[in-house]
């Protein structure tokens, strides 16, 4: 099957959401994950609360630089009944406020509230991408758990790194490697399920080709992160290097997955004909679905 005189029939890569949109998912997911980490790991909130909130603010700034009419940005709050973007925007101020205030010792318990907002925020982000029905890589239902889990894994990575820099005793506690390794393992499972889902349910050839090229490299990084986390468990007195390396790889891999999903693998639906028309005499012909 060939496509004459125009490449814009088979699915092509959307260009409306670029690195700035990816930045929102990257920083928003990492910041949310860090706040969830702060909510469950004792002693992490004073640093991770404001740090997580700062990540989320960075993500929102990325979006602000992308929208065409930034001075109307407050209109984003208008449609929470149907739009996941509105819902994300409505949660953001509460998440930022509670996360930032968790630095105050008397308000440390706000970390739990911030963690709850953060979970809601990262879920909104995942659903927001998933609601874009024009992009097969985003609308697949398995994209949702992948985006949530990677946000949590990145947050755990940031939490470990922040703890390592500020309170080595927390970071090197051997059990800290378990949640990090567990979340990375969960992300590997989510990636594999996502890829199988796209293979099974159908996706543009370009997307499947890019996935086949890009996924193994990133999965290798994930495995490296797990090995480093397990090394920390095996030799807990050997210093922070293995767990720090695992955390760094967990963050880098997560950012790489999200950049790829939002920017590189965002092929649109393209056009398709269930039938081709009769010409003169005869009957309708078989359909055409270029690029699928």
């Amino acid at each position, binding site marked *: 099957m060939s496509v004459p005189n125009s490449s814009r029939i088979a699915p092509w890569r959307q260009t409306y959401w670029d690195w700035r949109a990816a930045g929102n998912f990257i920083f928003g997911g990492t910041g949310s994950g860090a706040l969830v980490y702060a909510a469950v790991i004792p002693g992490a909130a004073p640093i991770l609360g404001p740090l997580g909130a700062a990540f989320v603010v960075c993500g929102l700034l990325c979006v602000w630089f992308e929208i065409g009419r930034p001075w*109307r940005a407050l209109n984003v709050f208008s449609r929470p009944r149907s739009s996941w973007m509105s819902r994300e925007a409505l949660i953001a101020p509460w998440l930022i406020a509670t996360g930032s205030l968790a630095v105050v010792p008397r308000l440390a318990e706000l970390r739990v509230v911030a963690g709850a907002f953060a979970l809601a925020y990262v879920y909104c982000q995942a659903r927001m991408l998933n609601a874009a029905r024009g992009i097969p890589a985003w609308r697949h239902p398995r994209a949702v758990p992948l985006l949530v889990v990677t946000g949590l894994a990145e947050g755990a990575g940031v939490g470990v790194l922040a703890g390592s820099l500020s309170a080595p005793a927390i970071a090197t506690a051997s059990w800290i490697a378990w949640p990090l390794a567990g979340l990375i393992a969960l992300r590997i499972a989510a990636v594999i399920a996502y890829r199988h889902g796209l293979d099974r349910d159908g996706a543009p050839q370009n997307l499947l080709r890019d996935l086949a090229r890009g996924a193994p490299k990133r999965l290798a990084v994930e495995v490296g992160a797990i090995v480093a986390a397990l090394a920390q468990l095996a030799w807990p007195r050997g210093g922070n290097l293995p767990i720090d390396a695992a955390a760094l790889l967990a963050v880098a891999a997560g950012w790489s997955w999200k950049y790829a999903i939002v920017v590189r693998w965002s092929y649109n639906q393209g*056009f398709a004909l269930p039938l081709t028309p009769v010409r003169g005499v005869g009957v309708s012909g078989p359909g055409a679905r270029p690029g699928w």
Partner: protein
Amino acid sequence: MTRYVMVVDLRRCTGCQTCTAACKHANGTPPGVQWRRVLDIESGVFPNVRRTFVPVSCMHCGSPPCLDVCPTGATFKRDDGRVAINYDVCIGCAYCAVACPYQQRFKTQHAQFAYGADPTAPEERQFDPARLGVSTKCTFCSDRIDLARETGQVPGVDPDVTPACVNSCIASALHFGDRDDPQSNVSALLRENRHFRMHEELGTDPGIYYLTDTDG
């Protein structure tokens, strides 16, 4: 109820792009933005190959994905089935553009003209700064349809109140009218011909029907 739809007779379309030009002329869209265009799709394997010309534009879906995702309320649905955009409310987030499975949303950040920095006389006349930095798309020539409410003329029958692309079609491949009126031109065409709608499996209830053959 009224549901304005377009019916495209794929048997008749010659791929001349007159509708594309008429749309640009009527709506003053900038270079690179085509609210309407005609795809040229070749399919099959030699010697059984087919070439099909497929006019596409906003499908004015009954269940528009662009409407659900819009965070501002800029995208809305009129009571006659048309999907419209309030340019004064849109923030240009392009969420609708990635939600549309027909690739029929456009965003232009800066003024662009066909021959460099200065607009031609028609471009100057039609230039609308409200369209910069926001989402735009085919409106089914909304000013004409709205005129029908004042004059009592019938869209799809009277040229003054019919979309420019339909008026311009040299092959009578494009038809416009009220699907919910059983006496309308489009209802008759849909009754008498085999038809499909694009990407119907995505649940969008698109408002453009493509005819491929007589029914039975």
